[in-house]
């Protein structure tokens, strides 16, 4: 007979100025009631810049995923967790009556589903907010952070970044209102403190001083950790130990990164506290995102793998040319090969993250089972700025609401916003329409 009171789902280890959310523990659910207490579904947009080398992304078959094309090879171990979606189109990314500026338009309309007003000085999308913020507005009160915006470069929010489109369009995915984007957090330390502390408003100098003084964040929650451990069974104690070890590891990475002065871009300073190495930087940020999702600190997140139109070089893999100039390869095979290499490199990093969340137990399954990760770009071919057939993977099982392991090809011009509607449904936010949606996507849950 089970009489012990369950640990609340929203439990924290607390210390001075520090609050660490806990992952899903067995103690949070009385035995025999897992089915009734399903873990929440989480949604993440993992955004790729500058389109994709599509021939190396697109399988030549439909239905069950078997061998994946070159770029997606790193994800092969997780092909049963992937839905590849074909022919989704973002019409508002197109020039329509506004001329050049596909990068600015495509990025700003990606989650807003709306026309973007062309301006280098004022930001305005003709829609109420991005779909992630619509979700955050509806269910964000159930988590400490309504949403989490993360990015890897370029804090600029003003000035022209693309043919008369403001940098605010190319450097943000989330929009809280038609005029207010939510800039992503670029600084790992700032992200860490957003998740666990109350010091996010400190200047970099103050933050460094504070970090030197305090040592590890775990020191501040030692007492409450000990107290909690006494109430946990051996399985939960192991889970908690692994979780706190991960947090400490991130702290150490942040400390190392703070000393890294290597430049990543000839014209732009790298974000404060970020390592120069892409993979290391990505790993650090996704580790924190994992903890945020694992601890149910938020259920909605956007992650910009560099900004749209980025000219970042990838010297880590021997590419010193900027990404954006390379995508305008004009058919030059040597340049195209480098684009493919960058696409592969991103996919490899992403696969590493998927691997980590696939190995985190949650409920009677894995964290990945309760995730919906959209891994994709707002452009198809970056060379010609194609806005149809956007490269789109939906990774995870959406809490059992998705049947992955397949490639589905929809009719041409199917609005990308139809995917938004389908995702919002699964997040418990049902709306009649969003952006230029015409319907929900069919076939996501059935083979």
């Amino acid at each position: 007979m089970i009489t012990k009171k369950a640990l609340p789902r929203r439990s924290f280890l607390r210390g001075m100025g520090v609050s660490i959310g806990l992952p899903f523990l067995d103690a949070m659910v009385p035995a025999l009631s897992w089915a009734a207490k399903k873990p929440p579904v989480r949604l993440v947009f993992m955004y790729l810049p500058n389109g994709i080398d599509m021939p190396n992304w697109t399988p030549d078959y439909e239905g069950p995923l078997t061998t994946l094309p070159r770029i997606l090879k790193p994800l092969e171990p997780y092909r049963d967790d992937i839905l590849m979606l074909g022919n989704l189109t973002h019409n508002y990314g197109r020039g329509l009556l506004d001329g050049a500026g596909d990068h600015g338009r495509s990025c700003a309309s990606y989650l807003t589903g709306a026309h973007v007003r062309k301006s280098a000085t004022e930001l305005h999308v003709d829609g109420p907010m991005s779909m992630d913020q619509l979700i955050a507005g509806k269910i964000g009160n159930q988590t400490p952070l309504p949403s989490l915006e993360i990015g890897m470069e370029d804090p600029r929010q003003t000035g022209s970044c693309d043919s008369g489109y403001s940098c605010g369009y190319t450097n943000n995915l989330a929009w809280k209102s038609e005029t207010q984007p939510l800039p992503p957090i670029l600084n790992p330390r700032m992200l860490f403190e957003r998740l666990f502390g109350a010091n996010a408003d400190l200047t970099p100098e103050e933050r460094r001083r504070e970090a030197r003084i305090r040592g590890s964040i775990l020191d501040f929650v030692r007492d409450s950790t000990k107290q909690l451990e006494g109430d946990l069974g051996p399985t939960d104690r192991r889970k908690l130990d692994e979780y706190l070890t991960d947090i400490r590891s991130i702290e150490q990475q942040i400390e190392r990164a703070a000393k890294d002065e290597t430049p990543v871009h000839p014209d732009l300073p790298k974000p404060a506290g970020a390592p120069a190495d892409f993979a290391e930087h990505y790993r650090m940020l996704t580790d924190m995102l994992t903890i945020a999702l694992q601890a149910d600190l938020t259920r909605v997140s956007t992650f910009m793998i560099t900004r749209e139109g980025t000219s970042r070089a990838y010297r880590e893999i021997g590419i010193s040319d900027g990404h954006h100039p390379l995508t305008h390869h004009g058919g030059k095979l040597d340049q195209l090969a480098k684009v493919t290499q960058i696409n592969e490199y991103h996919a490899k990093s992403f696969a590493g993250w998927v691997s980590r969340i696939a190995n985190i137990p949650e409920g009677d399954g894995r964290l990945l089972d309760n995730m919906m990760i959209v891994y994709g770009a707002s452009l198809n071919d970056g060379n010609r700025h194609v806005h149809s057939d956007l490269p789109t993977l939906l990774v995870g099982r959406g809490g059992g609401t998705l049947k992955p392991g397949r490639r589905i090809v929809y009719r041409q011009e199917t609005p990308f916003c139809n995917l938004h509607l389908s995702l919002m449904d699964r997040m418990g936010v049902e709306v009649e329409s969003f952006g230029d949606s015409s319907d929900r996507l069919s076939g996501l849950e059935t083979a």
Partner: protein
Amino acid sequence: MQDQTKPQVQAPDGGRGGRGGQAPANIPAPAGGRRGGAQAPGILFDSDMGRSIDTALALGMLYSLGPKGQLIAVSVSNSSLEAAAFCDAVSRVYLGSPAAGGLGRSGLPVGLAENGPKLGAAPMLNAPLEMKKPDGSVMFPQGIKDVRDTADPRVLYHNALLTQKDGEAIAILAGPATDLVGMLALKSHREVVAAKVGLLVAALGAYPSGTADPRVTADIKAARQLFAEWPGPIVAVGAEVGVAFPYAAGSIEADFSWAPVHPVVEAYRALQPRIHEATGQAMAAVLYAANQKEGYFKLSEPGTVEVLGDGRTRFVPSANGKHRYLIAESAQKERVLKAYTELASTKPSPPAGRGFRPQQVNQAADPAKAGGR
């Protein structure tokens, strides 16, 4: 008698849906000065392709309008892949393959109603589509093998209309109203229609009254809804106009002599010897849409088209009605038929470098078109 003094049809709200109408807040306003020169009015063409040679000829006319009109979207309201494939094949004759920037001039795919009325045997479609060259390859290439190679007409029209300035687009309907009404059912799409479409020309019904038109009986509910809810003005083209001004289809081979082979000619041949003249209801709609002030037809007084339960249409005059219908005057017959012949069989010229032309997927890379920043 020409009637060039008749005012253009005006919506009762003062022409909100016409030229100069303001787009609602979520519709992009035209960006002034970003495009040089006048733009030919964009035309949507929604037809029951496959039922008559009239619609095939009308489609040919639409590719030959020059500055008077630019076809921006083509869709078929029959649930027939062959009908969509035929439209695609015709498009490639006039505009070249997608790799050359063709396919519907707008660069958009062909629309196909998934749940539209069924089309029975259609030799005028199958004959050209199955025709082979001596080496065994298809005579008229087309890219539609599966419904996924087509677009939902509602989405297609929405996307095409957004390339147009407010009130400047024209919609031509020569089939059941199913697709257009489906578009009105989506709020955001309805707003786009209201803002962008200045005129709907509907080859549908008989006026001021007459027998039931198959295009109406195919979906009576949609026809009724179209005339009741379409946000802008409508000019209806009745079956009687098509009968009054028939295209002399017998001359089609001479008219198209510039082309060794042509899908419209092959479509016509497949229908022989059953037809000698093609009633020109759809052709009249195209001719009027692109030449509203040329006096080819007389316009009725304003009023409202009503759709009766048995599929017949009835025109009820009223001073503030949003509808009119075309009147065929015998004095114009020769002029109209000449225009049909010239437009339907015009030799295509290289596509002009204007307008909305998104690149097609998997084309050969073209550095000249790379829109770098």
